[in-house]
């Protein structure tokens, strides 16, 4: 089973090999350890423009470590990370941003007390004037924020309000719009739908496709295969810091994806366990009923 999977990964990589320079971003055997703890080992992955690569895994599977490496927050210890075909080690998020890699985090990377437009341009502010009199171009930033958000289909009341007043979905969308505006080529989305309701999740998934259609390579991290499958073009499955499979969409169904992710055997075990629990309940009820009837008799 295991060898077959690895072979599949190799095949996929081989398929992609000839046009390697077209790949936006390639990971080969990337690993990371914190002291003696191995957080990630041997991960292969390819991101192409206009495609959505989903990274799936349960909690603690190494998803966060992986994106932190790609976003420049951490550096990988082993393997090769290449951008446009040349090996690279990103020293900081700033370097990653300059290389066109933007991350939208689970905890959103927005400053709640600051107005939307200030958040939108944070770290990349527009200015006018020179030298000591260089100042923020406030009106232009406000206009662009409003315009960019409405282009993404986000209709906000007032860009002057603190971003903390927006809903989780809206904040995600502002963060995505910001990354798109600042010319990101690779967009990393860390569990954008994790804290959202069904409808809000749908909204965010739509923005993922919008970003893809604008030619971005999207890396979508999630633990929900039902969110990943409809938007994804390829799927990387992580478990306990290792890659347990890398599939393109044609190779896998959503059911297989779910089973793979949870680990088929484990899922069956869980179903069995739940069944047992149910049965146990009935037995309890029966026992109780028996005891009652005895008491009345």
């Amino acid at each position, binding site marked *: 089973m295991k060898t077959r999977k690895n072979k599949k990964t190799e095949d996929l990589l081989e398929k992609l090999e000839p046009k390697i320079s077209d790949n936006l971003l390639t990971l080969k055997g990337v690993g990371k350890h914190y002291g003696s703890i191995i957080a990630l080992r041997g991960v292969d992955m390819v991101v192409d423009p206009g495609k959505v690569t989903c990274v799936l895994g349960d909690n603690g599977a190494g998803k966060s470590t992986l994106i932190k490496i790609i976003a420049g927050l951490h550096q990988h210890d082993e393997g090769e990370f290449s951008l446009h075909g040349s090996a690279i080690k990103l020293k900081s998020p700033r370097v990653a941003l300059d290389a066109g890699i933007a991350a939208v985090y689970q905890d959103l990377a927005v*400053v709640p007390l600051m107005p939307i437009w*200030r958040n939108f341009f944070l770290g990349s*502010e527009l200015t006018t004037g020179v030298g000591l009199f260089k100042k923020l171009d406030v009106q232009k930033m406000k206009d662009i924020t409003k*315009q960019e958000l409405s282009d993404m289909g986000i209709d906000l009341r007032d860009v002057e309000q603190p971003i903390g007043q927006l809903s989780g979905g809206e904040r995600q969308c502002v963060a995505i719009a910001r990354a798109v505006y600042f010319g990101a080529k690779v967009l990393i989305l860390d569990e954008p739908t994790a804290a959202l309701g069904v409808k809000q999740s749908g909204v965010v998934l739509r923005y993922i496709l919008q970003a893809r259609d604008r030619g971005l390579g999207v890396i979508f991290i999630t633990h929900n295969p039902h969110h990943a499958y409809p938007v994804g073009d390829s799927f990387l499955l992580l478990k306990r810091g290792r890659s347990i499979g890398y599939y393109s969409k044609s190779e896998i169904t959503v059911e297989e994806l779910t089973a793979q992710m949870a680990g088929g055997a484990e899922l069956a075990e869980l179903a069995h366990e739940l069944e047992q629990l149910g049965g146990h309940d009935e037995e309890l009820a029966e026992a109780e009923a028996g005891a009652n009837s005895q008491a009345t008799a």
Partner: protein
Amino acid sequence: MSSITASPSQKRKSPALDERVGKKSALSILLGRPEIGALVGAIALFVFFAVVAPVFLAPASLATVLYGASTIGIMAVGVSLLMIGGEFDLSTGVAVISSALSASMISWYFGLNVWVGIALALVVSLLIGFINGIILIKTKLPSFIVTLASFLMLTGLNLGLTRAIGGSVSSPSIADIEGFQSAKAVFASSVNIAGIDVKITVFIWIAMVIIASWILLRTKIGNWIFAVGGDEKAARAVGVPVVRTKIGLFMAVGFCGWVLGMHNLFAFDSVQSGEGIGNEFLYIIAAVIGGCLLTGGYGSAIGGAIGAFIFGMANKGIVYAEWNPDWFKFFLGLMLLLATVVNIVVKKRAESSK
């Protein structure tokens, strides 16, 4: 990016009024400002003292109040910015004295022009700020601990070095050294306005508040200050230079300490090496009363100035009202408490969705 520059027609549409945005009244805009609580408090306090002590309204009294406010306010400018940036500094009170001592001891010991001492004191002050900042960044300790340590160390250095070099607890007089008069004119003179002597520190203070407000609201650095105080991780993730911003803030506090230190020195001609202890709290109180959140990310330079003005009014007003000044600290504590409660309400308002 291209969609913006290439779509002037759309762009014209965007500033159009949104029907969901109710016309904001001037009042509601005002209520959204961080310093509003302090402003209301300042007006109330002003009216109160004007009623109980009519002499309070005399121009000469106001000049005295403003002077008292300025000696707190100059430091409160830096301390407010630092607090918005999410940190605070307990070493400011003694760092002011360190700066004054550096200037006077260097000039006196080496027999140099006073201005050389002043320039080197600026280096010392900026260095103190830089060291505070770099230790904070490297150790990741809370600023409370880092600056408490530097507060204690500077207190010891002020006393120890002054005695070791000058042989006394106060620095020797530098009144006869070259450059003293011109330095006094810059840092500790009075300006006569319509027959009233107003201390120059008042104007320095106002200028510093204006510059700080400009930096905070209209420059990149201001945006970064709010961001590192509001959410450091988020700021780092979008590429804000968090380390440089924080160290810069500590150095700005050092600069303010230098300005005030020079005033303290040239208002007389020597400095008591044991002074300054406890003043750090006055600067922090001014910033907090002025609406700066202790947790960072919210506040204004104007707020710190209003806080300092409240302090000046309460400090001198009690004297004009001929009350026992023993009560002053009690009022200060009460105001601090009230201001903090108002701040919490303001923050909740800003964070919650309507």
